[in-house]
C-alpha cells in the first residue's frame, strides 16, 4: 500500500507500507542507483512475506529517487540519512533492514540487518567505469581519476544520474555504517543476487528466505 511521509524538503515522500500496527515495524532502506530498481520487486515481495509472518514494514523512497518529487541533483548521503531518520520516526520503526548501498544511509540506532552492504567507493567506481566505457564506445577518451576529481569539485553526470559534488565526495569516502546489526550474505537467501542482474527480476523464494530470517531473528 502506498503511504506518504513528511521528509525534510519541499514535499512529502512516498513509501510502500504494510502496516497493521503490530509490535515489530521494519524500515527497509533500499540500495542506491540502478540497484534500487533491480531490487524493488524483490523487496516489495519480501514485505508481503513479512506481512504474513506478522511483521509490519515500510519501504520509503530516497529523496530524488523512484517517485520522489525532489531533484536527484540536490541529494547527498547526508540528505538521505536525514530522510531515512525522519521516515523511521514517522513510521515508529522498531527495526531496520538496509540493502547494499542503503547501508551507507540507514538509521544506525535501530537494531536489525544489513544485506550485502556495499562500500561507497565501489558504487562510485562502477558508475565511473560505465561512463568511461560509454565514452570509449563513442570514440572519446575519459578516465576515472579525472572524472572523480571533476565530480568532487563540481558534481558529475553518471549513468543518467546528476550527482552533486557532495554526493560524489560522500560516496568516495563512505563505508557501511552498521553497528551491531546482523550482516546477511546472499548465500543465506539462495539463488543469485538480484541487484547484479542487468534486467530487474524477482525471486519469491529469496524473498521468503529473507522474511523468514528476519522473523526468526527477531523472535529469538
Amino acid at each position: 500500500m502506498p503511504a506518504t511521509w513528511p521528509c525534510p524538503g519541499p514535499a512529502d515522500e512516498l513509501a510502500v507500507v504494510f502496516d497493521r500496527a503490530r509490535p515489530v515495524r521494519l524500515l527497509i532502506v533500499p540500495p542506491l542507483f540502478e540497484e534500487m530498481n533491480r531490487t524493488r520487486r524483490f523487496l516489495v515481495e519480501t514485505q508481503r512475506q513479512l506481512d504474513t509472518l506478522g511483521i509490519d514494514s515500510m519501504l520509503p523512497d530516497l529523496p530524488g529517487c523512484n517517485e520522489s518529487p525532489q531533484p536527484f541533483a540536490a541529494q547527498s548521503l547526508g540528505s538521505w540519512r536525514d530522510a531515512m531518520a525522519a521516515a523511521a520516526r514517522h513510521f515508529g520503526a522498531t527495526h531496520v533492514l538496509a540493502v547494499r548501498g542503503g547501508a551507507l544511509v540507514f538509521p544506525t540506532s535501530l537494531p536489525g540487518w544489513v544485506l550485502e552492504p556495499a562500500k561507497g567507493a565501489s558504487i562510485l567506481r562502477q558508475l565511473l567505469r560505465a561512463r568511461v566505457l560509454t565514452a570509449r564506445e563513442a570514440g572519446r577518451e575519459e578516465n576515472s581519476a579525472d572524472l572523480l576529481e571533476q565530480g568532487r569539485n563540481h558534481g558529475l553526470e553518471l549513468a543518467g544520474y546528476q550527482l552533486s559534488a557532495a554526493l560524489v565526495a560522500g560516496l568516495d569516502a563512505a563505508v557501511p555504517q552498521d553497528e551491531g546489526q546482523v550482516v546477511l550474505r546472499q548465500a543465506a537467501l539462495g539463488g543469485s543476487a538480484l541487484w547484479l542482474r542487468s534486467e530487474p527480476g524477482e525471486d519469491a523464494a529469496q524473498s521468503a528466505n529473507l522474511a523468514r530470517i528476519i522473523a526468526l531473528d527477531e523472535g529469538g
Partner: protein
Amino acid sequence: MTNTTDTALRSLLSDVLSLAPARAAALTADSGLFGALPELDSMAVAGLLTEIEDRFDIVIDDDEVDGDMLGTYGDLLSYITRKLGQA
C-alpha cells in the same frame, strides 16, 4: 586452478547477465561476449568488472578493458587467469 576459475567465471556471468545455467555452461572459448551478447551494455560491463574484482580479488585498470579482454569467453578467462598468476 584454471578449472576453478572457469567454473567461477561461468557462475559470475550467469549471475550478472541472468543467463540460464545451461547457457552459461555451453559457453566455449570462442563464444562472443562484448558486442555479441545484447545484455552486455556498458553498465552491465561495469557491473561485471566490479564483480570480477570482488570475487577474484584482483584490480582491473580501465585501460585493460577492451575487445582483447572481453571479446570472447576465452579472452576473459585467460585475462583473469593471467591476473591471478601475477597476484
